[in-house]
Every structure is written in structure tokens, then in C-alpha cells.
């Protein structure tokens, strides 16, 4: 069955999609990048990080879960929304222990790349929580440093939706919400090194780390060293109208 074609505007640019897509899907197709952390190609969106917040007809909504509709007016790139996104990214930095200088994910970390893209330089706005969460090195090939976890749930969804397992899951609520494993530790679960849940690119930060391959990409050649996150989507811009 062919889906009904729809047309709406993102920052004044007319974009075309079909009913059933999300605002994020249509924006990606049109080459308009909406920043996101918890949403990733291939997994069901869950709308939890709120970095992709846009205004749809004046109301804030998470672009990754918001259904696209004909004639809506989406605002993505304004000083107000950018400042809101910067605050979210700063809070994620301040909730965990993000020591980029010693993190193996540095240079390919999406949290770091998002901070670069949003130009975060100014003094810390919130106090650092400096959590003390145990490191799980039980598995022979995989290490979990939950001090870097941003609770995006990408590993949880990859495990459930692609691997058809339940290796990871949420525990607790609110500020105590964290990602746990289905067992005493990671070695106690049925995780496999080839699972999507632990594949590179699933964890946006340096929480899920493959042992023995750290720092294999030289500085200057890492994923986000030269091009900002999202530029791969912006390269394909096909939308018409004013920039």
C-alpha cells in the first residue's frame, strides 16, 4: 500500500515525506540534520534524550518520535532551541564522569561531538555530580564503564530489537535510572561479541568498550576530528527553499 504523500516546512524549507514517517525521518531524507543522541538508524525511536527537540506548530516535541503531518511548521535551528540543546548536553556531561582525555571513545563519541557541534565552551553551568559507579570488566572481551553511560538505551533496544535478547535493561527511576545487565555481571549474561548491542556505533559514548582495541585510530583521523556530527546527513541536502 502506498503511503499518502505529505509536505511541510522545516525552518522554512519545504520537505516531502509520506504519512507514517517521523519528523526526524523526513528531515534526514531532506538532508536537514536534527541533533540526536538516543535515536539511531535501525532502532525504534524512544524520545528520551530530548536533544532532538524541535518546535512543531509552536510546541516543543521530540523530532524522533513526532509523527510527520501535512502542513506542519517545524522549527529546528533557532538560538532558543540551540541553547536548550546545549543545556541538555551540559547536564549529560555533568551527570557522569566524562574524562575525554583518557576515554577510548574520544573522537568518535557522539556526546563529545554534539558538544563540539554546539560549540560548548563556557564555564560549567551546573555542578559535576562525580558519580562512583562500579566498572564491569568481567567479560573477557567487553568492558562496561557506567560512569560514562548517558542512559540513551541504544544498547537495550539493539539487544531486544536486533539480537532478540535482553542483555541490557533499565533499572530504577528518575535520577537513579541506570542501565543494568541481565545477570550478576556482563560475563554472566548471554552477550556475544558479535551482538548489535555491543557493536561499535551502538553505544554513543565510551561506556561499552571492546577490550584490546583502544586508541587504535590516530588523532586527526577519528570520526569527528574533522567533520561535525550530522555533516553526513547535511551533505545530502535536497530540500528546496531558503537556507
Amino acid at each position, binding site marked *: 500500500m502506498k503511503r499518502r504523500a505529505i509536505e511541510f516546512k522545516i525552518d522554512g524549507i519545504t520537505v516531502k515525506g509520506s504519512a507514517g514517517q517521523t519528523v526526524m525521518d523526513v528531515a534526514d531524507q531532506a538532508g536537514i540534520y536534527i541533533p540526536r543522541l538516543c535515536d539511531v538508524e535501525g532502532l525504534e525511536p524512544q524520545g528520551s534524550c530530548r536533544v532532538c527537540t524541535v518546535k512543531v506548530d509552536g510546541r516543543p516535541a521530540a523530532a524522533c518520535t513526532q509523527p510527520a503531518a501535512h502542513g506542519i511548521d517545524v522549527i529546528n535551528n533557532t538560538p532558543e532551541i540551540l541553547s536548550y540543546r546545549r543545556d541538555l548536553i551540559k547536564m549529560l*556531561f555533568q551527570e557522569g564522569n566524562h574524562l575525554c*582525555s583518557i576515554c577510548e571513545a574520544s573522537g568518535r563519541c557522539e556526546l563529545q561531538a554534539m558538544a563540539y557541534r554546539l560549540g*560548548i565552551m563556557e564555564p560549567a553551568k551546573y555542578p559535576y555530580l562525580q558519580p562512583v559507579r562500579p566498572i564491569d570488566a568481567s567479560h573477557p572481551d567487553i568492558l562496561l564503564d557506567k560512569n560514562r553511560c548517558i542512559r540513551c538505551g541504544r544498547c537495550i533496544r539493539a539487544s531486544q530489537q536486533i539480537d532478540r535478547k535482553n542483555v541490557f535493561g533499565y533499572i530504577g527511576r528518575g535520577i537513579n535510572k541506570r542501565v543494568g545487565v541481565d545477570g550478576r555481571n556482563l560475563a554472566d549474561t548471554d552477550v556475544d561479541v558479535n551482538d548489535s548491542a555491543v557493536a561499535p556505533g551502538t553505544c554513543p559514548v565510551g561506556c561499552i568498550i571492546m577490550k584490546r582495541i583502544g586508541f587504535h585510530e590516530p588523532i586527526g583521523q577519528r570520526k569527528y576530528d574533522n567533520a561535525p556530527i550530522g555533516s553526513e546527513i547535511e551533505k545530502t541536502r535536497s530540500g528546496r527553499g531558503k537556507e
Partner: protein
Amino acid sequence: MKKRIATVSLAGCFGCHMSLLDIDERILDLLKVAEFDRTPLKDLKKFTKRCDIGLIEGGCCNEENVHTLQEFRNNCDVLVAVGACAIMGGLPVMRNAIMNSEDPLRECLEEAYMNSPSVYNATNDIPNDPALPLILDKVYNCSEVVKIDYQVPGCPPSGDTLWETLTALIKGVPADLPYGLIKYD
């Protein structure tokens, strides 16, 4: 009038100062518009005049760091936290991970001077000379101690990043760094 710049390394590794020297021959251009006051580059340990710009490397891990930082705040118009340690504590802040222990300072010192596998300490002494500044209960970043006006991320920030920041600050505007110069590592 030349701008006066002061710099200091607190709980840092002097990497940010080395990076400042990475501006290479541009230091001659810098000295046309600015002069250094208190800085380890000149081995000048006291302020001679009020300064326009203070560059802070490192956070605070002992009482001397706190006194020095407060002195910089009192003597500088604009205070810039340079590098990961000044901004968020950097590597020294990893010591805060044991702060939930019953006696965190003892545990920290015993780990460093007695129990660590690579330590050779025949007398099992922990340094306690009265001349040594007292270690703080945990490592604090600069903005937890004084008001910080700008921060330059990086571990260390590159020479180019520091050059862009300094030239902008000397002109009296915040630096607008291009993508490639904002780095956290």
C-alpha cells in the same frame, strides 16, 4: 597600552603551558600587544601589577592551589580556565572516586605511597613535612572555588586554540573558535 597576562599551573601537568609555547614565533606578535606578569614562563612568582587576563591551568588539589587561585581572581580582570583540569578537574579528579570511603584522604595517601604495586617505600612513611601544602578532601575545579569568565577546553588546548583565544581576549571579545579548534582531548 599593552595588556598584562598572568598564568599559573595549579593541579595540572604544565601541558597547557607547553601548548601555549606551541604558538611558536607568534609569541613575538603576542608580545607586541601584551606583556606577561606573574607566570612560570618568566619565573615571576608574585603579581607586580593588576592584570587584564589570567590563564589558569589545573584545578585545586591542595590549599596552596586555592590560595593561588584566589590571588589570581583578586588580581585579574578576566580569568580563563585553560584545559580539562581547570574546567572539570581532569585526571586528578579521578581521586574523587574514592571519596565515598570512610577515611578517603588516608586511603588516597596510602594507595599512593604504600599500597600501590609499583611503590618502593621501605619506611612506609607518608610525606608530612610542614612545608608541604595540605591536601584537600577532594579535587575541585576552578569554577567551584572562584568565578571563572571563560574556559578553553582541551587536554591540552592546541597552540592554535590558545592563540585564537588570547588574540580575541586582547581585543576584548570572546573567542569564536572554528570547529577544528574545539577539542576536549
